[in-house]
């Protein structure tokens, strides 16, 4: 005599898929299809500048890419960019979060200040940054900025100023988000744990390593991942802050340039996709760290 309630497990699963469908549909249309298209295109010689039918060229685009010095330069710049900005964001973000860890007078205000760079819409603050760092010649501070730029470019080569400003902007905004994320983790650490650790070890560094870091691990992992992806995928910040006059192309800008200026869809797609496997690998490693814990068991 087996009976199944109408709202049983099978019904739950059907409902689950129904509820998942809007999100999956969005992702399918906006991400999955375009990625599929990019994968296919990266294997062809598609170009709006070319007459005739599109030919399948296999891995030729990738082979050409690997043989191209510009690609390697872009890849190197991208890696440096991601590494430097991520390190900067993490260091500053962690510093901010630790500053805010204990209650003190004015904490709420400092917290808001630290939250601002992320909350301030980057789509427009990047414009502000660009004009601040590369002001129109008529403004009062233009000569000063001009000199600074000249000095930096003079020391590190043309384009260094622009590249530095991109990194500076990225770190400025990213450290704010990381700080907030880590603060969320620190808030969850019970005060007794700090006190307990205080009894066990008088070294602040040991306490930090033994108590704070392990509990922050999921937040740190999430922060690192979001920081890396935003840096690797960065196109707009680099483009905007350099007004398209790119001396140090990153992979994003290089692909954009190939599409917009050169109409080379195939190589551009191949180029964009080179980032994906690397990021996936990073993500798979990090999932272990920030996956939600298993449900507490009930008796």
């Amino acid at each position, binding site marked *: 005599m087996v009976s199944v309630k109408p*709202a049983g497990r099978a019904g*739950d699963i059907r409902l*689950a*898929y*129904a*509820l998942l469908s809007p*999100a*999956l549909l*969005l*992702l399918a*249309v*906006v*991400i999955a*299809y*375009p*990625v*599929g*298209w*990019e994968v296919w*295109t990266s294997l062809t010689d598609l170009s709006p500048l070319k007459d005739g039918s599109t030919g399948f060229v296999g891995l030729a685009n990738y082979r050409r890419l690997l043989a191209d010095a510009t690609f390697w330069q872009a890849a190197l710049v991208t890696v440096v960019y991601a590494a430097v900005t991520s390190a900067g964001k993490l260091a500053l973000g962690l510093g*901010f979060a630790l*500053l805010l860890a204990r209650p003190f007078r*004015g904490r709420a205000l400092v917290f*808001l200040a*630290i939250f601002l*760079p992320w*909350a*301030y*819409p*980057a*789509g*427009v*603050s990047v414009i*502000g940054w660009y*004009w*601040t760092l590369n*002001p*129109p010649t*008529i*403004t*009062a*501070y233009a000569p000063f900025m001009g000199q600074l730029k000249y000095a930096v470019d003079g020391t590190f080569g043309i384009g260094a100023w622009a590249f530095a400003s991109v990194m500076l902007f990225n770190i400025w905004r990213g450290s*704010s988000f990381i700080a907030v994320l880590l603060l*969320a983790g620190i*808030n*969850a650490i019970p005060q007794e744990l700090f006190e307990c650790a205080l009894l066990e070890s008088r070294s602040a560094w040991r306490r930090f390593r033994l108590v704070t870091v392990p509990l922050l691990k999921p937040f740190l992992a999430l922060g690192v*991942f979001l920081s890396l992806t935003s840096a690797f995928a960065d*196109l*707009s910040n680099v483009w905007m802050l350099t007004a398209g006059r790119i001396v140090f192309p990153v992979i994003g800008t290089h692909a*954009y340039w190939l599409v917009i200026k050169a109409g080379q869809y195939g190589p551009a797609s191949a180029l964009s996709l080179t980032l*994906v496997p690397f990021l*996936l690998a990073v*993500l798979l490693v990090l*999932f272990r760290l*920030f*996956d*939600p*814990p298993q*449900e507490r068991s*009930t008796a």
Partner: protein
Amino acid sequence: MNPKPWWAKVGHRSLMLLATIYCVFPIYFMLVQSLKTPKEDVFGNPFIVMDPTLENFQELFDREGEVRGFVGTALRRSYPFADWLVNTIVVFAGSVAATLVASVAAAYALGRLRPPGFRWWRRGIFAAYVIPQTLLFIPLYQVVHTLGLDDNLLALLLIYPTMALPFCVWILSAYFQLLPREIEEAALIEGASRATAFFRIILPMSRPVLVAAGIFTLGTIASDFMIASVFLLTPNNQTITAGLGTFDVALDELAAVAGVNLLAIPVVTISALLARGFVRGLTAAMIEGA
């Protein structure tokens, strides 16, 4: 604990001050610029404003193209800023709402109903972040074109939600998963249907996490520049971000900075008001559950 020595206190305070200046200065700088008269912009002290004016903001809404001092009418453009503002509000509010609805539904499915392999579903959705959206313009343009959404705000309403969705699904489903199942069960026994239990109990309980997801979404879409510029072409259809991108540096510096602030101030205000909730929500989602 021992009382801290004076130098530790001074050190702490100075660090606070440094951190605050570092974070706020660029924003302060933009705000000051936007309040300047053209004269002060050229001759004044860059860090302060002596003679604040709302002229630059006014000018944004001024469609007439009034002649300005040293720039002739010929070079003068006027901007449909009022339209941009409305478009921006529609796009931002719509995207945040759409993101939250889709994420909450998906998160409930993954965190509470748990279909087979729900961990991998969640990871799969989160993995969308490895795809740099800004690199997908051409196929995205095809999609938008096929749907007949060229130069239409709906294109942004389609694309924006996917930018924040993976993160929102992640934190919301983590929160739902950590929620003791007994709370929902208690409601079911008390006489609620599953839907009632969801809307009357689970959703209100999740407020901090919803706030966190909402703020994250707002912060993410407000940061977009490329998508708005690529998919919205006619001036009247643009958002503030896309519109400001068309400004000319040399001619419109002050008006543009004013525009930046006009977009930023409401976004920042909303975020600041909910900032504590944002942190609390992140904590709840990642660790506590309840």
